């Protein structure tokens, strides 16, 4: 290649760039309408799609219910609500990119976080940079909220609020338990909650005989399970997402690994888990941040837990679980905050959220210093005869803990 043609091509390329910018910057903005848009980057496809779909269901039910009731009241006017979905295909960097796109290009009023602690943490940097109030419907790990951010709020209580009651129950009701085995997915939330479990167990004098991580995408847990079997723990604690846990449970059966208590987070709360695991799901314990059996009367557009369950069942034909309910309440919280603040101004809405103290169908909502909710008591439940029954807190317990998982 001659030097002049090199220069020419370089120049061509740069002209390309320049023209590209000019053309792109001519893109028009949004037309002014009485609509509040909320950006929702979600994993609608990819390995986390089951969880992403649930979040979408929750948001949609809220938006529909709010709009049917006349919309969101901002000072003296009523605004319709519209959720702007973007699929980040379970790819975290894409989630961050989309979060920024929703803010700068789609110019949404507010945003919801992506799914899960990992992606929520990643995208929270963007919303903090732009001063965009964001509610995380599916992030519980404290590591997500320890950046000192002011614009991130979360509806899940911190992980220890799940592991502590669980450990108390086991210590009290199953004195035979001395040794604990922990198997965790090497991912933000599953690893974080496993570490909390480790701490909770040690605090009560249990002996943690096994604590290993498995890589994301692992399909064969035979080695880990064989080791667990060899250690003969009385309590097995496994973390991961629904696909992982179904696999682990099945392979436990294959290798005849059994224990008096088997706890799995976060999959057994879903009907899909019970369906896929069949008889193997019996007596598996778990904890989650909400359960349709709770009974609260709230200021939100649903009014009460029973009404929420009813509307959800009408729209989707199934009972809601905590993922969908959390997403719906995230929408409700934006609505309550906007209506209380009387404006769409981001700083004011943010301040209203920070000082909020309301009762909702989800439970009492009050956010702590870090933005994470601190006012809830998460339920512990067990799968008995194919359905999830609540065994804690005592106010709403439906049954007692059954011992023995084959």
């Amino acid at each position, binding site marked *: 290649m001659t030097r002049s043609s090199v220069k020419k091509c370089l120049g061509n390329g740069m002209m390309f760039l320049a023209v590209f910018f000019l053309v792109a910057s001519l893109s028009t903005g949004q037309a002014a309408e009485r609509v509040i848009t909320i950006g929702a980057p979600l994993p609608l*496809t*990819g*390995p986390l*799609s*089951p969880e992403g779909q649930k979040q979408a269901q929750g948001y949609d039910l809220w938006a529909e219910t709010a709009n049917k009731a006349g919309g969101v009241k901002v000072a003296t006017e009523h605004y319709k609500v519209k959720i702007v979905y973007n699929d980040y295909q*379970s790819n975290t960097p894409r989630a961050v990119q989309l979060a920024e796109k929703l803010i700068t290009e789609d110019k949404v009023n507010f945003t919801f976080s992506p799914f899960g602690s990992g992606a929520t943490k990643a995208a929270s940097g963007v919303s903090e940079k732009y001063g965009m109030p964001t509610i995380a419907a599916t992030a519980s790990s404290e590591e997500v909220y320890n950046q000192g951010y002011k614009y991130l709020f979360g509806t899940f209580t911190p992980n220890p609020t799940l592991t502590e009651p669980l450990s108390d129950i086991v210590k009290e009701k199953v004195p035979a338990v001395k040794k604990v085995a922990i*198997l965790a997915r*090497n991912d933000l939330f599953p690893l974080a909650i496993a570490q909390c479990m480790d701490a909770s167990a040690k605090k009560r004098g249990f002996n943690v005989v096994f604590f*290993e*991580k*498995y*890589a994301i*995408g*692992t*399909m*064969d*847990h*035979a*080695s*880990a399970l*064989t*080791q667990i*079997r*060899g250690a003969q723990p009385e309590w097995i604690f496994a973390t991961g997402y629904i*696909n992982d846990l*179904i*696999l682990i449970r099945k*392979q436990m*059966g*294959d*290798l*005849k690994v059994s224990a008096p208590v088997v706890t799995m987070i976060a999959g057994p709360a879903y009907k899909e888990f019970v369906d*896929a695991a*069949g008889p193997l799901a019996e007596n598996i314990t778990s904890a989650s941040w909400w359960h349709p059996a709770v009974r609260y009367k709230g200021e939100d557009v649903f009014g009460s837990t029973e009404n929420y369950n009813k509307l959800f069942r009408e729209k989707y034909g199934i009972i809601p679980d905590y993922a969908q309910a959390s997403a719906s309440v995230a929408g409700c919280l934006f609505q309550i905050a906007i209506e209380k603040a009387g404006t769409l101004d981001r700083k004011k809405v943010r301040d209203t959220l920070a000082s909020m103290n309301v009762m909702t169908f989800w439970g009492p909502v009050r956010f702590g210093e870090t933005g994470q909710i601190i006012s809830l008591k998460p339920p512990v439940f067990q799968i008995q005869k194919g359905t999830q029954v609540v065994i804690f807190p005592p106010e709403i317990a439906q049954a007692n803990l059954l011992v023995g998982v084959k």
Partner: protein
Amino acid sequence: MLYLQILVNGIVLGGLYACIAVGFSLVWGVLNVINILHGTFIVIGSYTAYFAYIKLGIHPLLSIPIAAAILFLLAYAFQSGMINKVVAAPVLTTLTLTFGLDLFVNNLLIVAFKADYRKVILEHPLGVLTLAGITIPEDKLAAMGLALLLTGLLFWVLDASRVGRAIVAVRMDREAAALMGVKVKKIYALTFAIGGVMAGAAGSLISLIYPISPLNSLPFLGKAFVICVLGGLGSVPGAMLGGLTLGVLESFGALAFGPEHAVTLSFITLILFLLFRPTGIMGKRGYE
């Protein structure tokens, strides 16, 4: 006791691994093409078995011929249509081509079937065998048995049939084979198709044991790489040995270093072999 169970786990896994890798090894050895599509072929085999079970009630072990047939046609088409054009081209070209093809086909699968994990849940699940304190799930055992059977079948075909001998001849020396009257382009297409068949069969077997998703294609491919280098290119006994070795290595590796390191261990082994013994455990010459 623990070690024996771990060993058995590894061997059972290894038999399956051998079936996964043998088609890939053959294609690499004969065509000197690294077929990135191999992982996706396996997944297609798995989906075939899954849908055959869901829609037609055919047990995955019995749908092997169906999966094999579909992949045969698919692979043959790909080879004669596209890959034959670049067979003599440098590594980069063939690798990038199969990578692009894989991206296309894999994403087609994701769009068609979603990336959600499917699982074949048998109406009458096979049980668990317990021998002297060692437990082996029967579905894994059946899969391993069939895998070894199929691999053995392939070996017999290569050894005893005319077409098989022609394939081996092309692998050894393309020009000489051509001079002997072997239609090299046809052999290439056939070999590639056989690679597809083995992948489809492996996929059928795998559907019994593991969840099915287009996202599993790359992990399968990774295993195939390691097994090929361990066992030597284009060699069926090599693939078997490589597969068993990898299975046992991963099993014990998980015990020694923790389950999350099993895959890393296999890759480090790969690198060490590449550096110090590129011809594999058995020492047969591969291509450069």
